[in-house]
């Protein structure tokens, strides 16, 4: 209890409180910029911490981190541009809602779910840190593979009436994920001898291309839809009514837990959390067909999940000094530069790190809702700008975003090509969401599966695989995956047979 008050004391110092409000605004805006991922938002926040002490610095950076994940969801809903990779699934349902003129409602739902997910994870972090740490350590490559494969298994149910093309799109994504250096051996694969491809297909430029650029092309080719976006309807963020919120309460609970757990896993993070939450909720939903058409459930799931992952990511960082994800690694570097030795002794000697992080997370998630409402008001105004101006502006932002990921022009070309391919995909009724899913999860799936096989001993490859499936978590998750994968394909066949009878 003393701890908690000491943490709150740090956060509620007048200067620190103003700084946190500032951090939340900064984070939300950074998150909303395409290409500025949460990791980058935290990096951009580091210069502000040079004059702070270590505890304030982590409180400040955590606030930016949480807010940026939320900020990304706002542009995902309004412009179909996921500002951060983890808000890509939010576009599936958020953008259709915005097109129907319900942008305000979608934003409100997104904010409330984000805040609850974030706060839930913060509480978990404070109370369950030691247990969660143990859980994190017991997850190895094989478990990570199983979990990311589960995210992939949603492929067959993304668009059930067009299953063949969806699977092809997903497999194309997996193929793209193979391009570049072999993750374990470092040998170039499928690069056709050009050095542009050796670094592989970067996720962020492809995502920006497929979502933002494609959308601009579509709007240009068929400007009629635009009216729906810019048209009537209350456009400012509207907090959901109690009834609307109660309809997603179980989703929020489940995704908070799932998101936190995925957040603590090394190498997973918010992106996997949001994809997985979306797919898990679609599976469990009583009306899976509504997903993707613009329903609250489809916004609540990924947004709760990715914000819950932020709290999870802080657990191994603070309790072991092992960063759970890229953003956490950046925070760690900021602390190391301040002369803090990261490790299990950190929280023993200086428990205020944990309490300050918790307090900052909790408070910034609340401030975030209000900050985001203000920012959303401005964003929604942007929608009123004629598309002849807005479209090119989006392209400009997308270009900057693609360049900023790695400071290379190759990524800009990649973004442009992805945009065109995305447009063709839409014309030919291929599913670009499935492709992105394959690309994002493919890399993680592959490297973890192969590491797992290296680690699991077995005389033959088959024996190694069998050993893998014997691990309890891996085995169970994989069985669920198979069921999830096959069921949507088999179900219509069974239905047909019955009809024939």
């Amino acid at each position, binding site marked *: 209890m003393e701890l908690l008050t000491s943490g709150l004391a740090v956060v509620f110092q007048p200067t620190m409180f103003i700084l946190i409000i500032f951090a939340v605004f900064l984070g939300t*805006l*950074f998150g909303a*910029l395409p290409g*500025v991922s949460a990791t*980058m938002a935290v*990096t*951009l926040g*580091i*210069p502000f911490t040079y004059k702070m002490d270590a505890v304030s610095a982590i409180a400040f950076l955590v606030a930016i981190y949480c807010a940026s994940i939320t900020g990304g969801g706002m542009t995902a809903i309004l412009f179909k541009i996921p500002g951060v990779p983890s808000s890509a699934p939010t576009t599936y349902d958020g953008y259709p809602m915005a097109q129907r003129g319900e942008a305000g409602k979608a934003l409100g739902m997104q904010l409330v779910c984000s805040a609850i997910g974030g706060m839930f994870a913060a509480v978990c972090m404070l109370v369950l840190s030691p247990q969660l740490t143990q859980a*994190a*350590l*017991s*997850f*190895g*490559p094989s478990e990570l593979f199983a979990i990311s494969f589960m995210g992939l298994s949603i492929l067959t149910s993304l668009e059930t009436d067009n299953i063949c093309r969806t699977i092809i799109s997903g497999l194309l994504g997996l193929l793209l994920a193979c391009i570049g*250096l072999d*993750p*374990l*051996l*470092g*040998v*170039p694969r499928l690069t056709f001898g050009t*050095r542009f491809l*050796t*670094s592989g297909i970067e996720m962020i430029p492809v995502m920006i291309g497929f979502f933002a650029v494609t959308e601009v092309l579509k709007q240009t080719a068929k400007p009629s839809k635009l009216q729906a976006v810019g048209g009537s309807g209350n456009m400012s963020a509207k907090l959901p009514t109690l009834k609307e919120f109660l309809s997603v309460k179980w989703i929020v609970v489940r995704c908070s837990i799932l998101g936190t757990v995925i957040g603590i896993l*090394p*190498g997973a993070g918010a992106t996997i959390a949001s994809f997985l939450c979306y797919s898990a909720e679609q599976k469990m939903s009583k009306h899976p067909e509504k997903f993707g058409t613009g329903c609250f459930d489809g916004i609540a799931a990924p947004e709760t999940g990715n914000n819950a992952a932020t709290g999870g990511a802080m657990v*191994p960082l603070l309790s*072991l*000094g*092992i*960063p759970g994800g*890229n953003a956490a*690694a*950046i925070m*760690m*570097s900021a602390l*190391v*530069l301040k*002369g803090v*030795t*990261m*490790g*299990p*002794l*950190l929280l*023993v000697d200086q428990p205020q790190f944990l309490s300050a992080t918790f307090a900052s997370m909790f408070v910034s998630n609340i401030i975030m809702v209000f900050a985001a409402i203000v920012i959303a*008001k*401005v964003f929604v*105004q*942007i929608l009123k700008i004629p598309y002849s101006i807005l479209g090119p502006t989006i392209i400009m932002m997308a270009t*900057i975003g693609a*360049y*900023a990921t*790695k*400071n*290379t022009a190759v990524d800009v070309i990649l973004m442009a090509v992805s945009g065109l391919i995305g447009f063709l995909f839409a014309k030919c009724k291929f599913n670009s969401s499935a492709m992105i899913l394959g690309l994002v999860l493919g890399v993680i799936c592959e490297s973890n599966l192969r*590491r797992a096989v*290296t*680690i699991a001993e077995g005389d033959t490859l088959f024996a190694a695989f069998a050993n893998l499936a014997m691990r309890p978590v891996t085995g169970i998750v994989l069985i669920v995956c198979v069921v999830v994968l096959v069921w949507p394909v088999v179900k219509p066949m069974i239905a047909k047979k019955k009809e024939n009878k």
Partner: protein
Amino acid sequence: MKVKMGTGMRKLKQTALLLVLAAAASGCGREAEGTEPASGDEYPREAVEMIAPAGRGGGYDLTMRTVAQCLTSSGQVPVPLPVTNKPGDGGSVALEYLAENKGSDTVLSVFSPPICLINLNGTTSYSYKENTTPVAKLLVDYGCFAVRSDSPYEDLGEVMEALKEDPSSLTIGGTSSIWSMDHLQFLVMARAAGVEGLDQIPYSGFENGGAVSQLMGGRIDVLSAGISDVVGLMESGDLRVLAVTSGERLDNETMRSVPTCMESGIDEVFFNWRGIFGPEDMPDYALNYWEETLENMARTECWEEYCSQYGWTMDYMGHEEFEQFLDETNEEYRLLLEEVMGGEDSQGE
């Protein structure tokens, strides 16, 4: 309406400001082009881009930022020295960038053994010899080998004994990919200890972090990594560091208690040297300028303080000496890789 316009405008300004911020922080708009080498007298006239071939927070990043910090705060270099991170593929992205900027006098990068290794193991076709101009070696860092504190192994010799009996009995993990730094660091020691079948020792690389948690979770048996990766967990007693790769014990509070490999009966050292490289065909005036500047910097108190803070051993070496050192080292690595990887090839046939 007016009010709305106001917020709109402010927002636009904010966005513009943010964009500038983002651009500045990410280092765009400072394209290092091969500008006309007007005359060496006035060099440097514009900002020199400092490349860290990895993301924020790693050894590369820390080295480059420290160098830039020391040079600008002491006023030794009058132009800005922006540090740009170019992560990817163990440094090959940065190496490629140097190759693109052939002949430029406004770009420098830091590299360590992987600059040789990524070429030798086939990750990239660029090499230090053809695509860079080595300017100076700055410092040496060391690696170490760690196990969980409940592990039966008390020193590195016991680990090697176990591997001598069965090379595949233990899984080694590290923070770099296979056939790169951490892997070789271990293999060098194993070879010196007389382990046979080096290619059969399972190695798992966790380039994106997580190697330490794999060790703690029991999925790898021995971790081969940098000292900064393990120091926190060693202090808390979760990990036991078996040996450091240096010739003598490190002069640092926590690491002093850790024996060297030599003390464990393995007569070998492994250096993680770091040096500054310019692009291929770097103009002579630029090379001379930087060699001199870095030599001066290596003597400053600022540099000394940072080195002791981060546990680096100062080890300055000028252009010619460094080039020679690289040739020798590269040959050493080549032979080693041939020996350990060659086995794998013949096995496959």
